[in-house]
């Protein structure tokens, strides 16, 4: 059997898709100075709410919209905690993750007493061969990433966002509404995270099961630092992770490698990202106002 390299490359983009959506959401949050550890829960809520809505209305568009609304609401909650009240961002984020996962699972339990549910329609792949990818994959790489790159670089909103994340005092003195900008960043970023989660249910699987996000949010947090809060390097990091993951899945069933312990194969992507960081990741510099709430004297 020839090694199916094209399939591995195609899978790379699929695996990277939720990481790109949620990771870029985290970039937006952190560029505004807020570490959103709610990411894992927001992806989970996006996956669940998106699925629930699509399953009950039969409309994928409504499902995606509902996921986005859930993300916006979660972002607003994070904003209330970290921006308005100035709560420690680690606690607020982890608390939000715990809450959203528990609330999703609770609702799932009440509505479907057990077992996994399936929607009959989902966003299916378009094109064929290597290019057979989900629409949300194309949107992530061809639309979202360039758009956010442009937004951060060349729009007034991006300039404001970077200013409140670097030096909120200076932004305030320049007449930029710091709190409002941070809320906007949190809500936009969280909506992207929710879409990343909804990709799993509405596009990849067409069903919801518990634990569906499986730590992808935490990987995004790592990728954002890996990519130094810049759009394209974060996308590259997601692709690196996706590639190593796709590669290990393929190698695991390739005769020569199947003797290697399975766990070592699965650990491979994590180790590769650490190694890549060790080689290229010197002297990471965080946004200036990272983790710090702002309030005028």
């Amino acid at each position, binding site marked *: *059997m020839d090694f*199916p390299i094209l*399939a*591995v490359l195609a*899978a790379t983009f*699929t*695996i990277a898709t*939720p990481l790109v959506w949620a990771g870029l959401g985290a970039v937006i949050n952190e560029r505004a100075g807020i570490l959103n550890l709610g990411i894992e829960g927001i992806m989970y809520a996006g996956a669940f709410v998106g699925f629930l809505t699509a399953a009950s209305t039969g409309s994928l568009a409504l499902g995606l919209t509902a996921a986005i609304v859930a993300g916006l609401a979660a972002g607003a909650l994070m904003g209330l905690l970290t921006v308005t009240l100035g709560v420690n961002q680690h606690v607020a984020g982890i608390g939000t993750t715990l809450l959203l996962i528990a609330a999703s*699972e609770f609702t*799932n*339990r009440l509505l479907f*007493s*057990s*077992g*996994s549910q*399936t929607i009959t329609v*989902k966003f*299916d*792949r378009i094109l064929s061969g290597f290019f057979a990818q989900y629409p949300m994959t194309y949107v992530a790489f061809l639309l979202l990433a360039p758009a956010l790159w442009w937004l951060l670089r060349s729009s007034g909103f991006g300039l404001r966002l970077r200013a409140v994340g670097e030096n909120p005092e200076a932004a305030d003195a320049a007449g930029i509404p710091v709190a409002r900008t941070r809320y906007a960043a949190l809500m936009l970023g969280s909506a992207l995270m929710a879409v990343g989660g909804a990709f*799993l249910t509405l596009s*990849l*699987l*067409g*069903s919801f*099961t*518990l*634990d*569906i996000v*499986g730590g*992808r949010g935490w990987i995004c947090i790592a990728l954002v630092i890996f990519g130094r809060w810049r759009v394209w390097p974060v996308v590259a990091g997601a692709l690196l992770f996706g590639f190593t*993951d*796709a590669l290990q*899945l*393929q190698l*695991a*069933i*390739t*005769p020569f*490698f*199947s*003797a290697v312990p*399975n*766990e070592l194969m*699965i650990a491979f992507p994590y180790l590769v990202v650490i190694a890549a960081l060790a080689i290229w990741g010197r002297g990471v510099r965080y946004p200036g106002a990272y983790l710090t709430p702002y309030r005028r004297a």
Partner: protein
Amino acid sequence: GGTTGAETPSGDGAESEVPSVFGAFATPLEEPWDGAIHAALQSAEEDGLIRYEHVDNLHTADEMERALRDIISSEDPDIIFGDAFAAEEAVRAVAADFPDTAFAFGSGGEEQAPNFSVFDNWMQDPAYLAGMLAGGLTESGTIGVIGAMPIPEVNRIVNAFIAGAQETNPSATVTVSFINSFFDPATAKQAAEAAIAGGADVLFAERDGVIAAAEENGLPVFGMMVDQKEQSPEHVVSSLLWNMKPTVEAVVAAVAAGKFEASNLGEYSFMVNGGSSLAPINTGTAFEIPADLISQVEARSAEITDGTFETPVDEEAPAGSTTVEG
């Protein structure tokens, strides 16, 4: 454990004569393994055989032990069902402390006198039959299996599936991927895609996520635990079913008769006893299932049921890629 509270529920006990059962599960009920036990207990309750309460998500041995002691001290049920995997030590210690309560737990170990019985999902029979179908359906000669992790409960199913494939297609290759998680449908799907890229044209979804890959690629797929046909009506050939009802009924009958004692309940999960089965073969698939293949499988199924064929049990981890050729 506490010193109070054991008396309160006994008033309820007077109202009805049926035994009270408590389910104590390590995973959420949504996970198929514990879900199957829960479903059987629920149906026993609907049938008026038992009164039933439950708690799930007892992830660690520590939580399991606390819950069991709490269950006994505050609810004092007649029977506790659950799974003891990864908490054997704790569960057995509690059972030893409360000899008057009947314990029936999923376990890889032996029963423990006087009150600790064990069961397991002995599904090698339907797995073998599904393997036969898979072997007959593959055109490329490669079959992909995506499983959770190489634990005995999974291994013996996968190995039986491989053996079944060998019967109908002696030259087939079976690739086995483990995702090292009970719940990670996204990764399971990617693993299935990798298997397809590696040439597989028939899939066995030991875990959730695989059916979506089969559907997208138009390939035959086998489901697990419950009939998953509705997830992809044109691609799911059949599913391996675990039916805990015979086990539950056996335990309840023994307790009701006051004759419960520690035993290995494993045989109640065997196909012979109706504890497991292959779901009806889908007639509406997008591809054709040869009639002679079906009759071959039905014949083997009948042999299993009448006891003339015994599916071999092999709990060793299967290799990542097994070429079946003997």
